[in-house]
């Protein structure tokens, strides 16, 4: 880039192209996409031992001819998810700021962190509301739309929603596709069915799959970043 004045109207197209190129270079240098994916994968895997060690809280039990039906709340896991996710977003924000600063840049992570934390609060509020207000739907099931919404604000779904915001902030199509693919998997009926089934393995299986996806994504984006820097 030189310090020449731009001839008025003469080279506007080239100047705009240079502006876009500079903006693109900053966005590339600000990216640390592997970090949130890695931290969120670890948080997801961490839910498994908490689940296996914790005891579910049973309430509103109702006798049936062939046994009884109760509300089940995995209290330890719920509190783990809320605390771990908030902590994860703080760690991610700190990591982005640190990396960006070392490269001589600021960062625009606030919308991602706020979205992530807001989704945690929404998830906690929905759980609380369900525990307090929702009558036992048994033997009827909630509508498919309600189940979909519940899965969407479930911790694994909320992680995917927040990743969409990160993709928008980083203007990164690859991350957008990854987030959509991740959501498609964790919200797909066979995976999401782990939520609410009577099998003990339902939830851990769901978390192994979603955590594995995040870990694979983290490795992929880290590799892509390494290749770009060595070029």
């Amino acid at each position, binding site marked *: *880039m030189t310090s020449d*004045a731009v001839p008025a109207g003469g080279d506007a197209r080239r100047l705009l192209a240079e502006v876009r190129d500079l903006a693109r270079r900053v966005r590339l240098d600000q990216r640390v996409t592997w970090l949130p994916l890695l931290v969120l994968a670890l948080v997801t895997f961490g839910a498994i031992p908490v689940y296996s060690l914790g005891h579910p809280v049973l309430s509103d039990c109702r006798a049936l001819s062939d046994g009884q039906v109760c509300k089940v709340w995995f209290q330890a896991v719920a509190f783990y998810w809320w605390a771990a996710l908030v902590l994860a977003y703080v760690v991610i924000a700190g990591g982005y700021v640190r990396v960006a600063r070392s490269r001589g840049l600021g960062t625009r992570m606030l919308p991602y962190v706020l979205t992530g934390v807001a989704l945690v609060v929404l998830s906690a509020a929905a759980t609380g509301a369900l525990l307090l207000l929702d009558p036992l739907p048994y033997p009827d099931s909630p509508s498919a739309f309600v189940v979909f919404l519940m899965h969407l604000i479930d911790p694994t779904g909320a992680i995917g929603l927040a990743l969409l915001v990160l993709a928008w902030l980083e203007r990164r199509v690859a991350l957008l596709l990854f987030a959509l693919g991740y959501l498609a998997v964790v919200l797909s009926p066979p995976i999401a069915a782990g939520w609410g089934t009577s099998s003990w393995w339902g939830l851990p299986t769901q978390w192994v799959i979603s955590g594995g996806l995040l870990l694979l994504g983290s490795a992929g984006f880290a590799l892509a970043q390494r290749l770009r820097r060595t070029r």
Partner: protein
Amino acid sequence: MTGPVDAPPPDESESPHPVTGLDDVVHQRVRLGILTLAHEAHRVEFGYLRTQLELTAGNLSQHLGVLETAGLVEVEKGYAGKRGRTWITLTAAGNTALAEEIARLKQLIARVETPSEQ
């Protein structure tokens, strides 16, 4: 009898040419580059600007001085360990000036690309 014919008054409905609104402070390659980098990065370090814009420290300082005097950027000096570091942040006026400059450049391109009506 015929006399000299006055030139027709300018058409009021026609919008002014985008060039007339260009700000000399911003409409300069390096300064536009500084504003763009500072806008995109939220805040940017002197060394990063120097590398990306391929300038000498003295040249970059001169341009930063012009932008700072115009109130378009804020320059903050600090330390990272023992190393001195200078951070540049865009002001609200700088943000507006950059948006206006880019809008005018787009108008200019649109004018060139639109075939004139005969």
